[in-house]
């Protein structure tokens, strides 16, 4: 099996404060992985380093064996906040920019996703509610036929009904060999999706296990496992 993500000895400091230290992580192609950790644990930073928008880290990051930042960006589809666009931009104009600059952008997938998420792309960005904006970001991110999807808290602000609908269907929007890394606080809701779980604690990858392993080894679900790791009920030597 080929690794989609391979991180070796990654350390990152900001203003002399350690954000990530000695991170080593391998994720095989095709998996859906939950990146879990408390606020400020470094989940977003790790994703931003993978996507080459955070700089100055030590260590190596390879996406499909590519370590060069530009090539990595071509392989990764990352949920971005769209703040680079004019607030008055129409969603269709943003779609056009994506279609222009990302060679892997699929117009058909975009139509399917916006239909599924009930987004009217004649609307302007600043007229969207927070939830609709997040849905649009998900639609844009998944419209790319990328090797790796990095979804950073993608369901924030989305109502619970839509959230459940998106989560239950998210798998069908990615190719079989595409890898999806999801960071989210709605652990219970995404748990059923996850093939594997990566927990970030104390600035590093504290554990990386498959959901099956968690069930068979500890006899608990993903959310309980996550809480036990953070709560100290499961000790480091047991991981």
């Amino acid at each position, binding site marked *: 099996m080929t690794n989609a993500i391979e991180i070796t000895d990654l350390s990152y*400091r*900001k*203003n*002399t404060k350690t954000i990530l230290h000695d991170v080593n992580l391998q994720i095989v192609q095709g998996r859906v992985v939950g990146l879990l950790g408390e606020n400020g644990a470094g989940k977003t930073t790790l994703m*931003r380093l993978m*996507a*080459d*928008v*955070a*700089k*100055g880290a030590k260590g190596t990051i390879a996406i499909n064996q590519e370590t060069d*930042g*530009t*090539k990595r*960006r*071509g392989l*990764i589809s*990352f949920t*971005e*906040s*769209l*703040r*680079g*666009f*004019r607030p008055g931009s129409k969603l269709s*104009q943003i779609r056009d*920019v994506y279609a*222009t*600059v*990302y*060679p892997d952008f699929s117009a058909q997938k975009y139509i399917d996703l916006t239909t599924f998420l009930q987004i009217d792309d004649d609307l302007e960005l600043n007229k969207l509610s927070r939830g609709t904006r997040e849905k649009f970001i998900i639609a844009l991110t998944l419209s790319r036929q990328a090797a790796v999807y990095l979804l950073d808290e993608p369901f924030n602000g989305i109502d619970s009904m839509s959230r459940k609908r998106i989560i239950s269907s998210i798998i069908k929007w990615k190719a079989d060999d595409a890898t999806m890394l999801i960071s989210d606080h709605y652990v219970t809701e995404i748990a059923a999706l996850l093939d594997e779980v990566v927990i970030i604690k104390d600035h590093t990858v504290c554990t990386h296990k498959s959901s099956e392993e968690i069930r068979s080894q500890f006899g608990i679900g993903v959310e309980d496992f996550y809480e036990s790791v953070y709560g100290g009920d499961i000790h480091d030597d047991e991981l």
Partner: protein
Amino acid sequence: MTSFSELFRSMWKPKGHIVNLMLFFYLLIVVISLIGQVIHGGMGDFSLLKASSGDFGLGVVTFIWLTVQTERDYVSDTYRLMPASEAKQYLAGLSTAFVAYLYFVAVRSLVMGVGLGLEWPRLSVELDQLRSNLTGLPHNWQMIAVFVALLVLLLMINAWVYVSLIHFILNTVSAFLPAGQQKVVKVVVAILVVAATIALSVWLGRLQYQLLHGASSTVNMWVDLVVALVTIVVTVTINICLMRKWVEAKY
């Protein structure tokens, strides 16, 4: 990978919007000026050239707005996530700002050109008189005009690349140095900016004197242009290196 032309097109859109907005204000001011002329002096005082040739500070505002937009783009996830090298991203940002400003100048020049055309019969007589009265004009005044035009363009690009350099240094310093060292670097940058501004003013003063007194040879003019060009190339190279290694996207 994203090509330069694709990057250019995507980065052009917000800048095109800025320039269109500023041109709208410009045309609005021209129309208001024309109405003012008619109200105060009747149709006899109607002069499109007079109404359109005022600066109104719009050139400066457009320049600053384009600069701010360019610098925002350099640290925006939207653009930094695009699969293009930092060199392409930087040059696309710089060239869209440049082309946008030229577009602004071109439309203004066109309006003034129409005004000039309407008043040409009267103006040509005045110009002939002026020409016969001017005796102290340097013999190579056409060459000087071309030199000044090129120099203005190069200085404009220099201004953009220097703003980027300062922005990138401060961005890097804020991200990676502790608070105490940040202050020291910021003070040093402030001193260097003041020193560079003074040096530029002195150089421009000297240049103006030489040009007006015919003391500048063709060779000197070319040397000045080459120096301005080399400065741009060196600063752009530093900016691209900073962007590749240290400058993070902020939002």
